[in-house]
């Protein structure tokens, strides 16, 4: 059951990421907006991250008939997704996300040398959670200011992804329970909620000869 849901989650993440990333790229090409460029990187990264994990599951099942995938590949996919979440949060102008002091930087990097791939995966998930919470809060604040339904859908989507990540984290304390399956269902709902605004926009591409960014 978990494997089936995991497959659906990663496939939906892959498709939603690529569609929103592609739409943002068309917007960037047509308007030259740096915000759309950051959204392009964000959603392509999210889509590719989900895609890597999905293809690893599929390859394992077809060729090796194993249910579990390599932890390194899982960490790679999650890491690429986190880059995507970072760019969403970065677009909301994170000014001091990383510590500026050299001491804190070195101390921050040091534990990575003593960690196993399993621990790195949990750290990546924790980063994803923080970035998603930040993105969700900023988007919901924008909704309160603008009262646009699309903004609410994106805010709820990011919040559901964050909540799903939190439940998945919590399921480590209570393994072999339905918590992990619930977390996957919540994440799927989050991805579908992210897709709501784009599904209402007309998908048409127009081309301009020159770059508008030459003032």
């Amino acid at each position: 059951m978990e494997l089936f849901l995991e497959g659906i989650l990663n496939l939906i993440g892959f498709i939603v990421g690529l569609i929103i990333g592609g739409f943002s790229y068309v917007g960037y090409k047509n308007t030259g907006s740096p915000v759309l460029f950051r959204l392009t990187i964000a959603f392509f990264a999210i889509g590719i991250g989900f895609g890597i994990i999905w293809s690893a599951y599929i390859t394992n099942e077809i060729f090796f008939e194993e249910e579990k995938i390599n932890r390194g590949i899982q960490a790679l996919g999650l890491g690429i997704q986190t880059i995507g979440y970072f760019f969403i949060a970065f677009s909301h102008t994170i000014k001091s996300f990383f510590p500026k002091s050299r001491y804190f930087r070195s101390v921050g990097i040091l534990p990575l040398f003593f960690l196993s791939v399993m621990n790195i995966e949990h750290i990546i998930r924790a980063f994803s959670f923080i970035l998603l919470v930040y993105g969700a809060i900023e988007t919901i604040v924008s909704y309160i200011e603008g009262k646009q339904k699309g903004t609410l859908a994106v805010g709820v989507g990011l919040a559901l992804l964050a909540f799903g990540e939190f439940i998945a984290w919590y399921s480590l304390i209570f393994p072999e329970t339905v918590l992990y399956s619930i977390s996957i269902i919540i994440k799927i709902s989050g991805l579908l909620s992210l897709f709501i605004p784009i599904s209402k926009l007309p998908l048409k591409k127009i081309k301009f000869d020159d770059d508008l960014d030459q003032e």
Partner: protein
Amino acid sequence: MVTYRTKIEIIGDILVSAQEKTMEQDGASIMHLIRNVNISHTRLSKILSNLVSQGLLEQVNSDRAYKYRISVVGKDFLGEYKKFNKFTSDFGLTI
């Protein structure tokens, strides 16, 4: 809190203003754009020459001064700008 417009937002405002005047009259004068878009003459002149060279605006000779009309490409761009402005605002961002 003071919020600054991005360059693309200023271009959007200029095109919207020019489109309104293109429908009503021959086009928008520089004075009209300065008032409507709330931008300095120096900055507006630079952006206008850029938009005319890109083919988004057409410069027409009126009685005493130049006027600016939105072109077909400009209308297409404005449509795209509005669409993606909505898209970015759905993410709580400014285009």
